[in-house]
């Protein structure tokens, strides 16, 4: 398609402060989802989520000064950390052409870690208890702003909000923007920090969380997901731009397609037909009808999983299926960026990791228990949002 390649990965995730740590976690099926400790979860049906442990936090957002951290919400801090790592991984110089370098960010909930205590303070002590930093902290475009400000970037930038498909759109549309010459380099990905009492309330009332506190997509017993916090950023640039500066592309974004259906249909039978059409369109753009692996959207309910698997079977037939989401928790708007990072690592290592927590797969193609060693040249990634967004991307090895 686009000639857009990926030259860097940066992340700040539960259980992983860099790509190597993430790869070890996913290949070992080691999940960072655990009981929430930040607030009392007695009234919430799902007590488990993926969140950064002390050591991972120290290695990522803990490297920022308190003065930097107080100005932004947690999802911004995570995004800023991931963006810094992605730039380093891609070998982007700080002096990279600022007005030709931008940010494409996916997010679903915005950030509420600063706002929540301010609202409590407003009720208890009056308006002077409201943090002035709320003004630039809470909204979904805040990470885009903080990354561009923090790195002095003034290039073409956007934030995409499309429920749990947000980052898929950020990466896909970002790749198109690079291909169209709107920017030479984009930092593209997603960030989410839903493990706060207020945000977690909306995760809960969405009805998508597992009442058993488990996340085992593709399993016969799947009953929802556990959320996770974190950020993943990729560096996108044109192949010739990357090679001109001596960068080694990790993969090419060969195909991308997106469609919208009514939100009450997205995880059902008609959503399955739309997903098949979107996957077909992405494959067509990539000029292929085969892939070596599919990274699942993995909503983790019987109906949604079956809808997804049915679409894949109809388009691709038998093909290894995986997802890293149970390892980190479902990062909602940022979740597709986690799968993109892991897909890049699959291409690098020639290995397809198992779906953590999936013991009784409803489809024989779901990789379980142990990693599948196999040549991996092409990976399809699927993403769906409860708002009706359906996206598919195809990554191809260089």
């Amino acid at each position, binding site marked *: 398609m686009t000639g857009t390649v990926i030259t860097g990965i940066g992340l700040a995730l539960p259980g992983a402060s860099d790509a190597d740590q993430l790869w070890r976690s996913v290949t070992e099926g080691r999940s960072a989802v655990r009981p929430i400790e930040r607030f009392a979860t007695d009234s919430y049906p799902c007590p488990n989520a993926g969140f950064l442990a002390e050591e991972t936090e120290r290695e990522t957002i803990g490297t920022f000064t308190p003065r930097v951290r107080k100005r932004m919400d947690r999802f911004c801090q995570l995004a800023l950390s991931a963006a810094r790592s992605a730039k380093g991984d891609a070998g982007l110089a700080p002096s990279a052409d600022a007005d030709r370098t931008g940010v494409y960010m996916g997010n679903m909930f915005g950030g509420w870690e600063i706002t929540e205590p301010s609202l409590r303070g407003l009720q208890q002590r*009056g308006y002077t208890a409201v943090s*002035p930093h709320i003004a630039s902290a809470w909204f979904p475009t805040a990470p885009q702003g903080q990354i561009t400000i923090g790195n002095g970037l003034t290039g073409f930038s956007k934030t995409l909000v499309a429920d749990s498909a947000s980052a898929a759109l950020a990466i896909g549309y970002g790749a198109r923007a690079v291909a169209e010459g709107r920017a030479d380099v984009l930092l593209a990905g997603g960030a989410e920090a839903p493990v706060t009492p207020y945000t977690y309330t909306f995760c809960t009332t969405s009805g998508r969380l597992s009442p058993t506190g488990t996340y085992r997509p593709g399993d016969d017993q799947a009953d929802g997901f556990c959320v996770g916090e974190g950020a993943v950023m990729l560096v996108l640039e044109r192949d010739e731009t990357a090679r001109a500066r001596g960068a080694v592309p990790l993969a090419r974004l060969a195909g991308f397609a997106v469609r919208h259906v009514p939100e009450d249909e997205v995880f059902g039978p008609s959503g399955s037909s739309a997903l098949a059409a979107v996957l077909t369109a992405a494959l067509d753009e990539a000029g292929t009808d085969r892939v070596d692996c599919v990274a699942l959207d993995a909503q983790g309910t019987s109906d949604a999983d079956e809808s997804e698997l049915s679409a894949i079977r109809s388009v691709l037939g038998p093909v290894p299926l995986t997802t890293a989401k149970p390892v980190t928790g479902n990062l909602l708007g940022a979740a597709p960026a986690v799968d993109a990072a892991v897909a890049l690592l699959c291409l690098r290592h020639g290995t397809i990791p198992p779906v953590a927590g999936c013991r009784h797969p409803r489809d024989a193609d779901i990789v379980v228990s142990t990693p599948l060693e196999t040549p991996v040249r092409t990976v399809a990634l699927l993403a769906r949002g409860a708002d009706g967004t359906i996206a598919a991307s195809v990554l191809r090895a260089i």
Partner: protein
Amino acid sequence: MATTKSTYDQVFDVLVEVGLEPSEITSGAVLRGDLGVDSAELVEIVNQLAPGKADGKALKSVETVADLVAFLENLA
């Protein structure tokens, strides 16, 4: 006998408390340009020194540490 801190000393202490480098804080230092204090952080600082007095319009005239000291003294 207890001594009362000057307004400048009170401002200095709060600037240090919010994370500024003490050696960079001078009376003539420009809050935004020299110290990186944006409008939100200025409100945070004033709220600590004079709760409820962080009037956004009035604060627009505050550019240096000396301006901030004068702003606070005029409130008294």
